């Protein structure tokens, strides 16, 4: 029942997004604009600042992710459908998992376009160790999405949710940003510093385990008014 409910929520979110493409286009445009503007500032005479690519990649993911989180839960607020989901006779944590999976799917699409663009504009050898790159992006995105979905759900009925979401989310996800940026910077070394990247992936994985567990545990009580 748990997995079925989570997959139903994911499938519903994908169906809505495929119809409207509203969040995907907004998020993509924002992320790509962000990278383009930074490339104008940080690439001088064809030479980017050292490690700029690592920071800009993760800033674009975090900002675009925040936008996607807000819009995804705004959709559930519009006709109070989140309350209908919470009334389903399965674990309320399954609803949370379904929403997180939707966010992750959306951010995965954004990252598929974002990474080659950053590699191109910043002459960054991001694909020199593709498995390590996927490991960094996957663990970092899961950590960000897991915490973000919990906060976005908690704030769905708050008047100042658009302001409160980044205020709550960014301090908590600082470890994700640090690990993501430092891991990506190690990946950009010539040759890539695999040991350092692996260490940062392990830190991100530990963050994911802690925060996914906490979120699953707290989702039901925080969503019960």
């Amino acid at each position: 029942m748990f997995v079925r409910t989570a997959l139903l929520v994911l499938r519903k979110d994908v169906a809505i997004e495929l119809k409207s493409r509203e969040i995907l286009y907004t998020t993509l445009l924002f992320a790509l604009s962000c990278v383009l503007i930074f490339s104008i500032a940080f690439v001088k005479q064809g030479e980017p600042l050292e490690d700029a690519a690592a920071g800009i990649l993760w800033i674009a993911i975090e900002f675009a992710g925040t936008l996607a989180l807000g819009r995804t839960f705004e959709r559930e607020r519009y006709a109070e459908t989140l309350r209908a989901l919470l009334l389903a006779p399965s674990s309320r944590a399954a609803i949370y998992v379904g929403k997180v999976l939707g966010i992750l799917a959306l951010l995965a699409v954004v990252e598929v376009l974002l990474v080659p663009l950053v590699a191109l504009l910043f002459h960054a050898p991001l694909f020199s160790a593709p498995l390590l790159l996927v490991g960094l992006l996957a663990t970092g995105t899961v950590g960000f999405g897991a915490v973000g979905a919990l906060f976005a759900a908690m704030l769905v009925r708050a008047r100042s949710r658009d302001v409160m979401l980044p205020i709550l989310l960014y301090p908590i996800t600082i470890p994700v940003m640090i690990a993501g940026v430092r891991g990506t910077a190690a990946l950009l070394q010539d040759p890539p510093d695999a040991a350092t990247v692996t260490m940062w992936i392990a830190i991100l994985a530990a963050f994911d385990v802690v925060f996914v567990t906490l979120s699953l545990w707290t989702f039901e009580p925080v969503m019960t008014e």
Partner: protein
Amino acid sequence: MQVSPPDVTVDFTNVQLVDVSRHFGRRRALAKVSLTAASGDIVGLLGPNGAGKSTLIGVLATLAAPTSGEVRYGGRTATAIGAPLRARIGLLAHELFLYPELTARQNLAFFAQLYGLDAAALVPAALERAGLAERADDDVSGFSRGMRQRLALERALLHQPRLVLFDEPFTGLDDRAVSLVADRLREIADAGAIVVLATHDLDVADGLVTRAAMIKGGRLVADEPAVAGLRARYRAVVGSA
């Protein structure tokens, strides 16, 4: 996707609120409300705006926890029963719990599956009852308020809940739609459901509800069998209607 029937082992024939209070910070939304509703009852929760009707509906729906007191579903609390209890509760609120981007059919199918029901068997009949069979594949965003309300009603009743909660279900409806919703409400009460209807539309409630529970400032000020002339009674108990 594999579907399984809803957990019908959780059943009850009455719902009892025992000294239920609910505070939001320092604001008291409900104060020691005690009320019992039984199978076949249509209990009208009547009161002015801000009286605590929606909070009470939220507490009954398990969406809000009482600050003190408890709600017993056939003698057991929501905590004791757990998630399967929600398979026996249907809620229709002023906000309709429908995804405007999805079609009427997709909305009903999604909620049917969420309750572990066979969507292919249930959805066509529900669309028929809502009078929307011909608009089944249209997006809900293009529907009128009345059409959405009828669809939302069927969504709330798809899983044949034992406890049916309506929070201002007549808002924005024309006379014909009000009459259709009221008829459906009588039908489900006759079938043995416990119906709790929060409304400030006394004209509709008069002749529809079997019991009147009047709330003012979070307090239950009357709980009595409904009689003709509900407006006059309401005025006497609560104040101006």
